[in-house]
């Protein structure tokens, strides 16, 4: 393993922002894979996954120099400043680094960070970004592939996760890291999981296992692992978004990963002043809860749950 400072940004009052990479195998050999940890400073699960991956690869490479075939680069996080302050985005101006790609080396600070990161990561066969969802939900781990990456759905199945979501591209996606990796011919995936702000070890470890499985199946490491799931393909219309009709205290009755049936109560909403039950949220379909609103106060019309519909997932097999 080689530990490198890939680039750094100086600061008036703090230590320089150092973005570190951990390189395994031999640089410039194939197959190659880059794994980038979170750009958002509250994505604790993702930091855990990336750091555990460094530990795993280091231990096995120490025991067996030929353990890594090709090259693997792990960048546990791009944004230590925000992690150390409990902020989501770049501390000074609250900009999201993941809307700055491919970056601009003469532009603003986050454009420069994006540019330097992209320069270091745009020449790999496979590229994996670890992400938390940006809205207030917790979700079961899934692989996200942009529509422009539909041709490598079979590669996405190598992670062995239950769901592969195909995301319709919006203008914002065109400035994301995964989109720009795709443009430069890497097979790029986002692994999305967990809940911001706390460590969900159970969910995070599923993602860790999925990455190890992917590295095994793509012949990047010499290791044995369990077969995962076949990977149900989920198209945008296959997900039912269930909204609250009332606002108040949110009492959840069902969790991510639960199989639910049409008519099943999922949550209750109580008036936050007098305690009256004002809504029971009912499942409109059979399926599996993929996302759940993660805060105990809920707005009217908030998305309380997302359910992957059973019949849709079956149709996409």
């Amino acid at each position: 393993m080689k530990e490198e400072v890939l680039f750094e940004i100086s600061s008036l009052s703090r230590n320089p922002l150092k973005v570190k990479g951990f390189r395994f195998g031999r640089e410039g050999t194939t197959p190659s894979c880059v794994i980038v940890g979170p750009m958002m400073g509250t994505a604790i699960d993702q930091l855990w996954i990336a750091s555990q991956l460094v530990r795993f690869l280091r231990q096995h490479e120490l025991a067996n120099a030929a353990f890594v075939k090709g090259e693997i680069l792990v960048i546990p996080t791009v944004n230590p400043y925000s992690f150390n302050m409990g902020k989501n985005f770049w501390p000074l101006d609250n900009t999201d680094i993941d809307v700055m790609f491919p970056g601009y080396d003469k532009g603003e600070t986050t454009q420069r960070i994006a540019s330097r990161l992209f320069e270091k990561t745009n020449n790999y066969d496979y590229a994996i970004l670890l992400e938390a969802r940006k809205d207030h939900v917790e979700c079961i781990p899934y692989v996200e592939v942009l529509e422009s990456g539909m041709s490598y759905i079979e590669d996405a199945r190598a992670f062995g996760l239950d769901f592969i979501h195909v995301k319709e591209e919006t203008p914002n996606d065109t400035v994301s890291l995964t989109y720009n990796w795709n443009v430069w011919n890497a097979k790029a995936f986002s692994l999305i999981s967990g809940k911001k702000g706390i460590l969900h070890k159970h969910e995070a470890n599923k993602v860790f296992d999925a990455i190890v499985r992917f590295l095994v199946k793509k012949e990047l490491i010499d290791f044995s692992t369990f077969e995962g799931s076949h990977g149900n393909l989920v198209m945008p219309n296959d997900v039912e978004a269930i909204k609250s009709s009332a606002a108040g205290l949110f009492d959840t009755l069902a969790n991510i990963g639960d199989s639910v049936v049409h008519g099943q109560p999922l949550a209750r909403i109580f008036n936050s002043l007098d305690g009256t039950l004002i809504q029971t949220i009912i499942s409109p379909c059979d399926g599996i809860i993929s996302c759940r609103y993660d805060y105990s106060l809920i707005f009217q019309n908030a998305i309380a749950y997302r359910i992957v519909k059973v019949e849709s997932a079956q149709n996409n097999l």
Partner: protein
Amino acid sequence: MIEEVFNVNLPVNETLTLRRNRFSPEDISTSTKRISIVTGIHGDEIEGQYVCYLLAKWLNANQHCIKGIVDIYPSMNPMGIDSITRGFPFYDVDLNRNFPGNTADFLPAQVANAIVDTVRGSDFAIDIHASNIFLRELPQVRISRSTADELIPLAEKLDIEFIWVHDAVTVLESTFAHAMNSLGTKTLVVEMGVGMRITKEYGQSLTRGILNLLAHVGIIERAVLPMTKTTVSNLHSEVFFVNASKSGIFIPILEHNVTVLKGEKLGEIIDPLSGRIEETLISPCNGLLFTIREYPVVYEGSLLARILEDPKEDTAL
């Protein structure tokens, strides 16, 4: 007439409401023209509040002049305004990167969708922004190159300091202005002043410009003013950006809105701890200093100034 255009209940005994003030003639037909004046999409940009006030005040006092519909929407992100937050509070997202929005998405996207729905059908719209808290801007209209032919003649009626025709990046496709232009509403974006502040002179000047535009398009009956100010960039001049190459404290030497010469000193980046000058910023061209950094703390890459180059001589002649 003050109307509510969007309501959503909040968890604890409050409703989030978007309001507009509609001024209209007594007789409305399908040929009656309509303009929407929108501001407050970014909660820390307050300059537009004063313009809305001045405009509503004028229309209240001159109802006999009103021949078309003027809708004034001062606060499109009420909780952002209330908390000096650029983005949409709780979700920490930029509302102006979520247009046209979606009713099946999180609350900011629902709000964006509601704004589009209510403004839809207007012949014209003006989206008034202040700069952010970091930069002070001379009043300007920003127009993407793809809509320049259609929008420059309209923008010129505002008698504003200058019109900046720029190459739109894809992320701007998720703005209010792009969404409305795509729906056939000719929409101008005005930037002026600085975040969290009101520059009365700019507000008064823009209000006169808007009244001038309204007179030109027949929405009010009023004498049309002679044009005195407008410069259009990117026809015979360029905009130069000056970014920091060091972190530190930026001390400007020049005032905002002055003519500068190539090689002239714009300011310095200093280090208060060592007492050293880290960088001296020099003007890259002759021109108008129309943007200057207001917030002193800078990182490498922070934008310090923009200069509109003096018009080039036409060498073809």
